[in-house]
Each structure stands twice: as C-alpha cells, then as structure tokens.
C-alpha cells in the first residue's frame, strides 16, 4: 500500500522535503512508516523523540495500523500564536 508522509518544521528541514509517498506492506503501522522514513532520512531521528504523529489529521499512537492512502504527519513540538 502507499502512504503519504508529511514533514513539518524541523522535520521538514531534516527530511529536506515537505512530503513524499512511501510504499509499505499491508498491515504496516505508523511505527513501520517512521522506520521507513528514518531509513531514507537518518537525520530525522534527532526530532522523533519530541515529535507526535498524526494519521489523517488526528494524533495517534505509534502502534496505529495504516491503510492505503493514509496521510501521516510528522509533528515536532508546536509553537503557534
């Protein structure tokens, strides 16, 4: 299946791309997607400890199962306002 990874702020800088499509085996979890992203962008590791992950605009635990077409957001600590 294909999943879209969306990188924001420092994660975007470290991945050097705002978004990309990753291919994952059926039944893969958010954590599997993160591991795939880290293989492509090892520098991302620096922000993963403090980042949250979303699936289709909801923050989710890393164990969440993914489905084809899902969008996964890499969300470093936020500072709006």
């Amino acid at each position, binding site marked *: 299946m294909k999943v879209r990874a969306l990188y924001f702020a420092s994660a975007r800088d470290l991945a050097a791309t705002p978004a990309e499509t990753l291919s994952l085996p059926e039944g893969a979890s958010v954590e599997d997607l993160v591991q795939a992203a880290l293989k492509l962008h090892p520098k991302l590791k620096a922000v993963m400890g403090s980042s949250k992950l979303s699936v289709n605009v909801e923050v989710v635990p890393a164990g969440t199962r993914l489905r084809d077409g899902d969008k996964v957001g890499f969300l470093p*600590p*936020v500072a709006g306002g």
Partner: protein
Amino acid sequence: MATKSRITTAPIDPARVLASVTDPAAGGTVLFLGTVRNSNEGRPVRGLEYQVYREMAEKRMVQIEGEVKAKWPVRKISMVHRYGKLGIGDISVAVAVSAPHRAEAFEACRYAIDTVKRSLPLWKKEAYVSGKGAWVKGDPIRG
C-alpha cells in the same frame, strides 16, 4: 460564514474579526491579538515565518470553538491564524468572543487562545537581526 477561512496568508483585520462576533444579546466582547515582537528571550527579531498543517489546524479550530461554546454561554466566537512570513507588529492570531457578560467573555477568550497555542499544528521560525533563524522551541502538540 460557510466560506470563512481560519487559516490564511492575508493580513488579519481586527475590525472584521470583531464584526463577525457582534450580537444584540452580547454585553461584552473580548478580542485577543497576537503580534510579532521585536525580540524574544533577549534576542532581537526581524520577523517570523509560520508553517502550518492547514487541514489539521482548521479542524482543531472548529473543535476549540465548539468546546468554548459548550463551556461558556458565549454568543459568538471567531478565530483566525495567519501563516507565512510576518514582520514586527503583524498580527499572527486573533480570537474574538462575545457573551452576555464580560466575565465569561474574558474566560472564554483566554481559554481559546491558550488552547490554540497548545494544540494547533503550527510552527514558527524566528528571523534574527543577526541573520540566522531558528524554529521556536515549543511543546508536543496536545492530542
């Protein structure tokens, strides 16, 4: 207000935000404006650049508005957050709340902006006068 945009690159007009919460049963209206300061933690700042996960931010803002209306007897609430490059003095965020009495207008507006700050997928990079820039250290997004 079906076309109302809560996340925008356009300059925020406070008069328009206020107009969107006018209500004949409101006795008190509180407006909060966040503006770009010329310094942060003692360091001179030239401006800010906001990045946003727009789809998620819009959804969260609708949720926050609903939460505020459930908690306080507010008449109307309106919020808008700007993104992209902002200069000193530019308005980054506006939250307006109208209510029958001022106590609830103040409390609801304060709650709304505090929640916006904690739970919106927004990031800002400071452009220092020294030429460098850095993402402002924040807190993990509230899930």
